[in-house]
């Protein structure tokens, strides 16, 4: 139990996880559990606000929630204990504590529920909406002080940010000299985050770019036939095929799947294909499909649907956001013809797909019209060379040209 910081072996602390390479702090905006709740591996514990979005965080151990260790809205470092949990009976040798009534183990007795557990916040405006509820005065004051309203905990009616909230935040920021309030996930700050990451990519990663045209006629026909007999909710979109094809290709060409760490490439065991999803309010997020090489096409599609819905509503799970090993960007049918991608550090490659165009195409000795997608590879020249990239692209093309094997 590497997340235990408590000498009392009957208890362990749940720490604020890192939800991305760039995250070093965050704040709990909502508890998803209450004191006394029994939680199991994979249960959602809280919603954590990071620079990118609000993310549900999961727990990896079973236990009973004893105590919340941080306040809603408090800015905390990654690794800070946020919830104290009591181990389930089975994990303790020789004790038979009931879930709620531990009898006399050392350590602090559980405080009464109502006293120790911050209640879940009252119903509030949806924090994910673009418009943050705030009074005109609060807006004006925040503007004058260059404070980001989304960083200010609202205490007014319906959770609206009011004057007192702005003044409190301004005072706190002045007192600590913290610049934290400016670093948050508004479209502007998301822009700043993207700017920082992309600048780093272009500064540190010697990119090389390759392109390959792929005839997606067979894929279109196969998908059309396959989807014709399915209800709309079970239909597979081309994007899922792209992820699946890249996943399969990355499994074969592992030098493109992983991270550049210090001075060498570290191929990853799992193939987690991230998908760039643009947000209506601006900016983009890149949650991934875990183990894309080992999921069926339907499973990839199912997860992709989840990711898009969660991304657009701002409810991405932490486990979808961390540990991406390669990224796919798909411009869609209204996009550009091809994309010269920028790698998301510390990954090693990004595969881009342009729109499908009806183009003259030579098959045998005949010129015909086929739907063509240009696949591009942006790869880290420190890790691979053009010949490797060509083979990687060829494998991707092969999978897309043989959709029945996807």
């Amino acid at each position: 139990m590497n997340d235990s910081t408590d000498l009392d072996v009957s208890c362990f602390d749940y720490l604020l996880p890192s939800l991305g390479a760039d995250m070093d702090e965050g704040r709990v905006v909502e508890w998803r559990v209450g004191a006394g709740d029994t939680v199991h591996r994979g249960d959602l514990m809280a919603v954590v606000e990071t620079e990118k979005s609000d993310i549900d965080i999961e727990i990896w151990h079973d236990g009973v929630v004893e105590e919340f260790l941080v306040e809603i809205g408090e800015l905390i470092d990654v690794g800070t204990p946020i919830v104290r949990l009591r181990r389930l009976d089975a994990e303790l040798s020789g004790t038979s504590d009931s879930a709620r009534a531990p009898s006399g183990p050392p350590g602090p007795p559980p405080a009464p529920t109502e006293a120790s557990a911050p209640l879940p916040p009252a119903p509030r405006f949806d924090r994910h909406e673009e418009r943050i509820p705030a009074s005109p005065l609060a807006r004006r004051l925040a503007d004058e002080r260059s404070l980001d309203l989304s960083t200010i905990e609202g205490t007014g009616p319906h959770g609206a940010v009011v004057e007192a909230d702005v003044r409190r935040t301004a005072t706190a920021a002045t007192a600590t000299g913290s610049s934290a309030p400016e670093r948050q996930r508004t479209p502007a700050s998301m822009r700043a985050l993207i700017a920082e990451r992309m600048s780093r990519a272009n500064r540190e990663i010697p990119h090389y770019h390759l392109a390959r045209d792929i005839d997606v006629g067979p894929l279109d026909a196969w998908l059309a036939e396959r989807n014709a007999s399915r209800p709309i909710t079970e239909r597979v979109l081309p994007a899922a095929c792209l992820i699946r094809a890249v996943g399969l290709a990355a499994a074969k060409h592992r030098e493109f799947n992983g991270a550049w760490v210090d001075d060498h490439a570290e191929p990853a065991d799992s193939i987690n294909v991230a998908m760039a999803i643009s947000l209506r309010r601006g900016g983009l997020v890149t949650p991934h499909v875990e183990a894309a090489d080992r999921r069926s096409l339907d499973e990839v599609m199912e997860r992709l649907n989840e990711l898009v819905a969660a991304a657009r509503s701002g409810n991405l799970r932490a486990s979808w956001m961390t540990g991406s090993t390669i990224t796919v960007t798909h411009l869609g049918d209204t996009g550009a013809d091809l994309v010269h991608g920028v790698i998301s550090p510390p990954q090693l490659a990004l595969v881009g797909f342009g729109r499908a165009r009806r183009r003259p195409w030579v098959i045998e000795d005949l010129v015909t019209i086929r739907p063509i997608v240009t696949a591009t590879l942006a790869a880290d020249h420190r890790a691979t060379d053009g010949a490797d990239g060509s083979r990687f692209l060829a494998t991707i093309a092969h999978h897309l040209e043989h959709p029945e094997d996807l």
Partner: protein
Amino acid sequence: MSDLTTDPTGVETPTMTYREAMREAIRDALATDERVFIMGEDVADYGGTYAVTKGLYEEFGRDRVRNTPLSESGFVGAGIGAALGGLRPIVEIMTVNFSLLALDQLVNTAATLLHMSGGQFNVPLVVRTTTGAGRQLAAQHSHSLEGWFAHVPGLKVVAPATPEDARWMLPTALADPNPVIIFEHSALYNERGPVDATLGPVDLERAAIRRAGTDLTIIVSAGMVPKAIEAADQLAASGVSAEVIDLRSLRPLDFDTLAASLDCTHRALVVDEGWRTGGLSGEIAASLGERCFWSLDAPVTRLASAEVPIPYAKHLETAAIPQVYDIVANARALVGER
């Protein structure tokens, strides 16, 4: 009238009821200006339905204190004629509900003549009428329609809420060369308060801060003023500092005073005994929204009477009009729970 109150400076100020103050104002006007006379239903021998003119007939005689038939249109029209002829009539309309029978005279004639005569004929008419609920007088004697008159250019509309304003608004109204309507709230007639006998005519265009506060501004007039002050007392006990502003004048509205208050409190609750829809509270709220938007820390909120004819039954009447606890609850919601 005989009571005395001692203010913090040690000066003794006589107190009187709102009714006594109004009567004293009329008596003073009749005594000091021979152009002044009062007419209305039962104002002479009976002393007025609300006993405001009690004793004046005996003191000044039938020429100065005149009973009229039950014809509001007729006697208001007569008042306009008298005003045009050089007199200074005070016309008493028993309740605001009956003033509707005189709407044509007031809106089409009194309010327009100066304009339509190219400035030749002003109408120095004063109309007094009662307004408001709370005395179980049912739906034809209890409404608050002063907002309708406040809609009309050419009229001045005032609503004294204190005995002192009851005493000293009338001379200002009589001195005004144009029509002034004075709304007296029926529930205030027995309210007792200090009246400075030497104060003299007061202005009719400025709102008054009846209680200073810093957390929100409660904007009221007439019968809602004592309720708002009581609400402010209760709010103070729980740490909410409410400023109570008595509009005094409903037309024109003194937005300078309201805006200055909101600059401090950033929140406003408009309490109106009239109905909400199309009412004066909406006018005030909208104007404050326009003028003070970037100062507001909460929506300008209205508390008005239920949209029903005012009921006769006591408990229903109480429920229909804003009460102290309604004001307190709305104020609390506005500042957030403390």
